[in-house]
């Protein structure tokens, strides 16, 4: 056969005895551009496999499309029959909208709109079936709220407490290094109290719960969707939002403020340790400064903020859970998306809350 990638006009290629994958892999024919008439000489060929059949069909299509000719020479009847038998209809490649920026933008906008409608309906249904809807029906199992509070809230106590304590220590050490330069060590107490109560307590709790409870919510719901459990609930006449999401909604709504307060206490305790043993403040001084800097308004806003965060966590967790289509791989993908998007939304919400603290009321 010819070695060139461009067979000359009226070229003849003598095919081997075994027209199989091993030969096709080394052959230049699959990538050769059609030129003139190509004769494939099957005189020696006795065996053909899928790669061989595909090669012949590929060349035949290519030559015919470009108005040129492929000729099969000296082919045995059985091989010709095999080639004809496996002349499956070519599958049309899907029309791609790539390249047309307006079509792509339109697609994205339609998708965002549709997804927003779905996400909002999950939020509205959760709030409705979790509040007023409870007077119409109660499609959840007895004791499930306690179970969920234990799973989503109580079991997070350790990690929330420990991380907040460490964060309090880090924040105190970093702050005192700067404050010392101005002889203002005592302001460390105000800084750590303000920081933990107004900002870091609810925020660090929300981020931990988005990673822990949000991901668990998404993974659980997504697995139920994949295994048709959600369909089964619907066909049993049960409200799937009330059965699956509402208990989680209430469990996190009730435990999140408690965890946020725990986080504040643990962070301030971390600051106390540094104040006592590193900055050498007295306990009395720390206490009086701390009490002076805790405002009821800040505390209430932080508790409300943590409740709002809890709703965001469950809403986003449920949305990504119900969004899953396909199998186990999709469950993993949606769980990751849920955590990333959850943390992002919480930080945005936290930024918005920062303005509320300055409102005078």
């Amino acid at each position, binding site marked *: 056969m010819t070695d060139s990638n461009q067979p000359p006009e009226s070229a003849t290629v003598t095919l081997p005895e075994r027209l199989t994958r091993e030969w096709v892999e080394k052959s230049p024919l699959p990538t050769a551009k059609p030129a003139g008439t190509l*004769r494939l000489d099957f005189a020696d060929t006795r065996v053909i496999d899928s790669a061989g059949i595909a090669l012949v*069909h590929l060349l*035949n*299509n290519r030559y*015919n499309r470009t108005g040129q*000719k*492929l*000729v*099969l*020479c*000296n*082919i045995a009847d059985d091989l*010709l029959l095999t*080639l*004809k*038998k*496996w*002349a*499956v*209809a*070519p599958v049309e490649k899907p029309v791609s909208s790539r390249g047309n920026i307006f079509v792509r933008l339109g697609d994205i906008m339609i998708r965002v709109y549709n997804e927003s409608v779905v996400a909002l309906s999950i939020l509205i249904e959760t709030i409705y079936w979790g509040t007023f809807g409870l007077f*119409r029906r109660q*499609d959840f*199992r007895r004791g499930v709220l306690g179970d969920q509070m234990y799973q989503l809230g109580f079991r997070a106590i350790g990690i929330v407490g420990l991380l907040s304590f460490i964060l309090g220590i880090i924040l105190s050490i970093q702050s005192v290094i700067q404050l010392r330069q101005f002889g203002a060590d005592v302001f460390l107490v105000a800084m750590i109290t303000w920081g933990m109560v107004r900002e870091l307590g609810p925020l660090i709790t929300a981020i931990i719960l988005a990673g822990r409870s949000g991901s668990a919510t998404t993974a659980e719901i997504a*697995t*139920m969707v994949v*295994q*048709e*459990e959600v*369909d*089964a*609930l*619907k*066909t*049993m*006449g*049960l*409200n799937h939002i009330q059965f699956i999401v509402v208990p989680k909604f209430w469990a996190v709504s009730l435990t999140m403020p408690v965890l946020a307060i725990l986080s504040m206490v643990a962070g301030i305790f971390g600051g106390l340790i540094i104040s006592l043993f590193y900055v050498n403040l007295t306990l009395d001084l720390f206490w009086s400064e701390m009490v002076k800097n805790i405002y009821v308004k800040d505390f209430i806003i932080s508790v409300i903020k943590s409740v709002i965060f809890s709703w965001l966590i469950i809403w986003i967790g449920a949305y990504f859970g119900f969004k899953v289509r396909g199998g186990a791989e999709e469950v993993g993908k949606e769980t990751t998306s849920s955590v990333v998007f959850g943390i992002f939304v919480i930080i945005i919400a936290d930024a918005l809350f920062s303005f509320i603290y300055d409102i005078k009321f």
Partner: protein
Amino acid sequence: MTIQQKPIIEIRNLVARYGDRTVLHDITADFYPSEIRVILGTSGCGKTTLLKNTIGLVKPYSGTVTIFGQEMGDLDSEGTAQVLKKIGILFQNGALLGSMTSGENVALPLKMHTDLPDEVIHEIVQLKLAQVDLPHAANLYPDELSGGMRKRVAMARALALDPPLLFCDEPSAGLDPVTSNGLDELLLKLRETLGITIVVITHELLSIEKIADKIIFLDKGRLLYDGLLSEARAVTGGPVYDFFNRTPQNVTTEADNSRPLFHVENA
């Protein structure tokens, strides 16, 4: 069995689409009380889609479905739930809730939709599990059960409220012939003893032969045959004949017309 009664399910001109792709074309069919109707066809012909559209899990693109005299499209979620309470559904993979034991799964519809005392519910659960030949499985979780056992527990759950209508989506799929035969026997027994209407989706020939009174044959989303099994067996030619005679359809036996012909030169 009499079949000249008012239909329990009426499907009229049902069209189902996934995006731009039409999956079911203009399906019209009636299902009568106490019959075992098998919806069959090759894989991907739209059997499960027909089931999901019939019970309202997926909204039809067009057409209507009426069950127990109520048009599903006219019902709000509460009304749909009320109809669904009268239907038992056995999903292809069982769809048992993994966080509950078998007994809790079977008890779930009873606890949610009845005011029966726990003791009575417990007795019913035992009875239903015994009906499916799993009297000792109440405390086992779904992941502790084999595929066949899971399906049987799912069947017990589907039957918990004694529904007059039972849908089974490929009950024999993935089961050995003995277990599969056991499920078929169970379906026959349920019809005989409780008189319930059973709609089975399957492509298992042995099951079809054993349980079907009438069949609906789907091919590429179109209803090709709706009638008695015995008459379907007498059809000569076409996909229905091919199905019952196991004639391969997806293998191209002649050169595909859309492919260019070969130029052949033999010495």
